[in-house]
């Protein structure tokens, strides 16, 4: 499985400390030559290392705002979490500010989230799903399942993410209304998240993505703020209801689904812990599992600016402001679904998700078993301090790296010291030995 990840390292800033290797949920980072190195196939782009790095040496590759000019007609697709970054009580102002940045149109991903909710409800009622259904909205969580929980792949909701549905509808709408060819329309996701960039490069469940670029919220934050100050008249652009906007924070998706038996978990390590319980056959009564890699949900994304807790509260306030308009706004969802005669089959995955077997020791089980024994033998000689000085996150990972041929046992400073001690003893021993010509028995 190819996994072109988007998280990169600024070598200048990296001190080669071990903070990131310790926090990575897929053990995808090693320190080599005093610099962190990300193992491409293992990285799921959860952004945990961006958050943990004290030197800000990790960053995500995203597109610049200038890149929208490659297209004749430019559409902004703001993530629901975008709304939470600013102290604004009217979403229209924010959407208008995006137009001021050079976009010709906006389509709210929050609206697409409502469409996804509509089809997810249908999917839940269909017979052929495995419970609990695992939300596919967070690409980092989907990749975590592919990498660490291959037996749960069949539980993943096989429905396109709101970002993808937004791009699809926005493009179709423009083609229809403006008579512009599809390849001249550019759809850009305004993103809190690095994993979405990876998704666009190698989509999950689909051959291609309708999204042409991903622009980090942090990169437009300042510009939007300054535009907000200038805006006087506001056009009515927003059609998303509180249900769609609520997706920005953890639990919003489940709330919109109106299923009682759901669990929502945020933070990649917490998600992994609960997935493990699902694997054990627990959480059987749960219908829906909403797992989001970032703490707080998408509002806590590594490319977002505002404090996630403040942002979460803003989302709550925006949703309650829209309460009296909820019905008319929700009617838009059906309007769109009908006007494009969208059916469940239009948003369902085109291809099955593959497992990402990077954690396997070998593709041949017998050889893998041999390697497993070797790992355990090596592990028994390591100190078990998980100090990270060897550049691997734990002694166990070092043992695996040695067996895989990427490291040596003397990479462990304790093993090295032990070897030096032995050598030193040997030297002392040898130095006490005299040549036979000098050896004499003093009688």
């Amino acid at each position, binding site marked *: 499985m190819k996994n072109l990840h988007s998280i990169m390292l600024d070598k200048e800033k990296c001190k080669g400390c071990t903070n990131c290797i310790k926090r990575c949920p897929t053990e995808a980072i090693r320190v080599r030559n005093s610099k962190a190195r990300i193992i491409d196939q293992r990285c799921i782009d959860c952004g945990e290392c961006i958050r943990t790095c004290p030197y800000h040496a990790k960053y995500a590759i995203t597109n610049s705002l200038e890149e929208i000019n490659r297209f004749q007609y430019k559409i902004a697709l703001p993530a629901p979490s975008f709304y939470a970054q600013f102290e604004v009580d009217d979403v229209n102002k924010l959407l208008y500010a995006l137009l001021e940045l050079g976009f010709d149109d906006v389509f709210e991903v929050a609206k697409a989230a409502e469409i996804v909710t509509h089809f997810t409800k249908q999917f839940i009622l269909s017979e052929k799903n495995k419970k609990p259904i695992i939300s596919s909205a967070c690409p980092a969580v989907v990749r975590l399942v592919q990498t*660490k929980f*291959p*037996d749960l*792949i*069949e539980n993943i909701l096989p429905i396109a993410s709101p970002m993808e549905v937004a791009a699809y509808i926005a493009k179709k709408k423009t083609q229809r209304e403006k008579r512009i060819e599809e390849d001249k329309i550019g759809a850009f996701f305004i993103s809190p998240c690095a994993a979405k960039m990876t998704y666009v490069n190698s989509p999950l469940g689909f051959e291609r993505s309708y999204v042409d670029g991903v622009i980090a919220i942090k990169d437009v934050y300042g510009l939007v703020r300054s535009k907000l100050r200038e805006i006087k008249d506001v056009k009515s652009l927003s059609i998303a209801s509180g249900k769609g906007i609520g997706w920005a924070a953890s639990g919003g998706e489940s709330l919109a689904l109106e299923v009682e038996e759901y669990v929502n978990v945020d933070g990649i390590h917490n998600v992994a812990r609960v997935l*493990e*319980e699902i*694997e*054990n*056959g*627990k959480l059987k009564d749960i219908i829906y599992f909403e797992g989001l890699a970032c703490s707080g949900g998408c509002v806590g994304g590594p490319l977002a600016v505002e404090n996630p807790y403040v942002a979460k509260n803003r989302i709550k306030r925006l949703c309650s402001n829209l309460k009296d308009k909820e019905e008319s706004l929700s009617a838009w969802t059906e309007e769109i679904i009908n006007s494009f005669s969208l059916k469940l089959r239009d948003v369902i995955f085109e291809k099955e998700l593959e*497992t990402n*077997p990077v*954690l*396997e*020791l*070998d*593709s041949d*089980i*017998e050889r*893998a*078993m*041999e390697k*497993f*024994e070797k790992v355990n033998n090596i592990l028994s000689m390591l100190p078990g301090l998980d100090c990270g000085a060897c550049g691997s996150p734990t002694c166990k990972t070092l043992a695996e790296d040695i067996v895989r041929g990427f490291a040596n046992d003397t990479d462990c400073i304790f093993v090295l010291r032990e070897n030096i001690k032995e050598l030193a003893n040997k030297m002392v021993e040898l130095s006490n030995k005299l040549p036979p010509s000098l050896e004499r028995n003093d009688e």
Partner: protein
Amino acid sequence: MLLELEFEIEPGNFMLAGEASSKIKETLKKLGVKPEVLKKVAIVSYEAEMNIVIHSVGGILKAIISKDKIEVIAQDKGPGIEDIELAMKEGYSTAPEEIRNLGFGAGMGLPNMKKYSDYFEIDSQKGKGTRVYMIIYNK
């Protein structure tokens, strides 16, 4: 070639409950066992481990992994099952009130182990202990 994993299970320790089956699962993932097989082993080993934690005075959970099959063995030191036939019924449980109040002991452990294993054998002697032997084929 055989790989043997053996874990001591502490009775009544809910903090550690599930750790042994997690390690078995992790091992199988490293070995690249197919997802369907992994899922079955995950469920039976977890249920077996929980049964030792809930009902026994301590025991061991063992997994013997070979190319073609995974054997899961749960052996405890008592008190044993009075009526095995009854214990195998879905929803039947002898778990004490305080355990049920914790949400455990719904009487699905043994039936689930049987359901998800390809071969299931249970041996129990009142006052002595229980041994559950299961095979999941690695097809």
